[in-house]
């Protein structure tokens, strides 16, 4: 079981809801993934529409937790405002906090992130911060009141997979009790398995599923990979060796390994 802010979840995959070919395909992908948490991104003009209509009512009708995000916000102030709007619209105090520092790489502005995390935590929000793999930033976010971290493994939408496993390992090792969700940068199921093997609790996906040739099949593939990685992490994996070693002694030869 995965526990995030006192909520118990059996699925280890969170799914973003943007960029699918249609809402119907999104719904099928959500079902196929078995996810219990979907993220939705809120923009100002979204909130300006007739509430209770359209895409939002589809999302609200699902039997999953909604984790609104502050995608597209570039300052702490903007992110705080968006979080407050999301709280009203989705009746939840969960917020995935994103403060973008670079328009091109969508790299988080970690200074503004910490600032916004503090403001929102003080206001009673349960903050899920999208951060880099930096240890000190992680520490500041925990100080600011976050109980969950969402480090990237590569820039958003880049599909590169874990680029710096050393940093990810060290992050994992330093805060063994903090649930961490790998957010951003996963391209294929093997990437998901890899980060889960490193001991992360869950993964968040969007582009890799939404933009796949068959988003529904890809959602299922990622769910299986994250389960596999998680199970492997707790099953005790064999460490790689430099030479191929036969598992039974070769007959007729003394073996001293």
């Amino acid at each position: 079981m995965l526990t995030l802010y006192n909520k118990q979840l059996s699925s280890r995959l969170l799914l973003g809801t943007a960029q699918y070919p249609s809402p119907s395909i999104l719904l099928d992908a959500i079902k196929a993934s078995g996810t219990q948490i979907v993220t939705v991104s809120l923009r100002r003009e979204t909130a300006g529409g007739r509430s209770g209509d359209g895409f939002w009512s589809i999302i609200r009708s699902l039997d999953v937790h909604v984790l609104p995000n502050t995608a597209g916000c570039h300052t702490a102030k903007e992110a705080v405002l968006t979080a407050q709007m999301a709280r009203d619209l989705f009746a939840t105090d969960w917020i995935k906090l994103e403060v973008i520092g670079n328009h091109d790489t969508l790299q988080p502005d970690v200074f503004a992130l910490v600032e916004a995390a503090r403001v929102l935590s003080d206001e009673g929000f349960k903050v899920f911060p999208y951060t880099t793999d930096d240890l000190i930033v992680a520490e500041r976010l925990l100080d600011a009141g976050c109980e969950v971290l969402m480090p990237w493994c590569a820039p958003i939408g880049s599909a590169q997979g874990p680029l710096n496993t050393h940093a990810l390992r060290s992050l994992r090792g330093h805060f063994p009790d903090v649930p961490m969700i790998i957010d951003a940068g996963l391209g294929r199921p093997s990437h998901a398995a890899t980060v889960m093997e490193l001991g992360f609790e869950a993964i968040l996906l969007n582009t890799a599923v939404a933009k796949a040739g068959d988003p529904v099949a890809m959602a299922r593939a990622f769910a299986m990979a994250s389960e596999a990685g998680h199970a492997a992490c707790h099953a005790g994996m064999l460490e790689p060796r430099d030479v191929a070693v036969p598992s039974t002694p070769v007959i007729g030869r003394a073996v001293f390994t």
Partner: protein
Amino acid sequence: MEVLVKGAGVAGLAAAHELAARGLRVTVADPWRGGGRAAASWYAGGMLAPYCERESAEQPVVELGLRAADWWEAALPGCVLRNGTLVLAPVRDAKELDRFASRTTGFERVGEESIATLEPDLGARFRKGLFFATEAHLDPRHVLVSLAAKLAASGVSFETDLSQYDSTRFDWIIECIGRSTPDKAIRGVRGEMLLLRTSDVSLSRPVRLIHPRFPVYIVPRGDHTFMVGATMIESDATGPITARSMMELLNAAYGLHPAFGEAEIIETGTGVRPAYPDNLPRVVREGRTIAINGLYRHGFLLAPAMAQQAADMILDERNRTP
């Protein structure tokens, strides 16, 4: 047989034309005769691009859209430009072009030289692209206004005062009212666009730019104007374009050619596309009312096929009753 078409956006006018052409007496009711500024149709790019749309749409869009250019050309001779579509990516996003190619058909790959031959002003600015030679485009506003005028001239009556007509005197009602429908399954997808004017660039065909968040395109409209579109936002808010959307659209235009930086912005607009959950259109019959809706991104591309389906429903029924 008397038919009332409610709504004079692209769906309504296409239906009215198809029905009139098959010999039915048609009345069109809409407060705006040519589907004015309240209609999503007014803000469309006017691309008839079934192959390109396959990048994000399902196969029926291609099948239903293939004959759209012929239908429009027959309805309004001379309105369709068959110059194809050019899809370009900045060098950095070349991989995205491969992704686009892997999801579509009906194109050839073009390099710097062919791009320069097709669009001389873009020569040397792009190294790789896809050329969809058989696609077409039209000017939606010209088409809406001219089609309404042609229909009026051929005996279709237009009712702009909705309190004036008695809908019970019609044998059939075709409802094409887009976002105003009471159908709860329809949602709105907001699209923002701009019109630019510059004589420093000329293009012969719609150019699509690979963009990480939404497909941006520039459609030449003649008279040195260009339509730049369009955002895709899950919302039915009709308010003015936001600064962010405008920056993204302008950035794309500027990236295509820096001369767009000197262009005049002559209009900004927002349309709300009516869409069903699968983003495919439907023709739904209930008694003597047929609703055409859910044209989403594909109003000009798919209205002809929807109009034909609706007309078939009415005529099949007439042929069956002795």
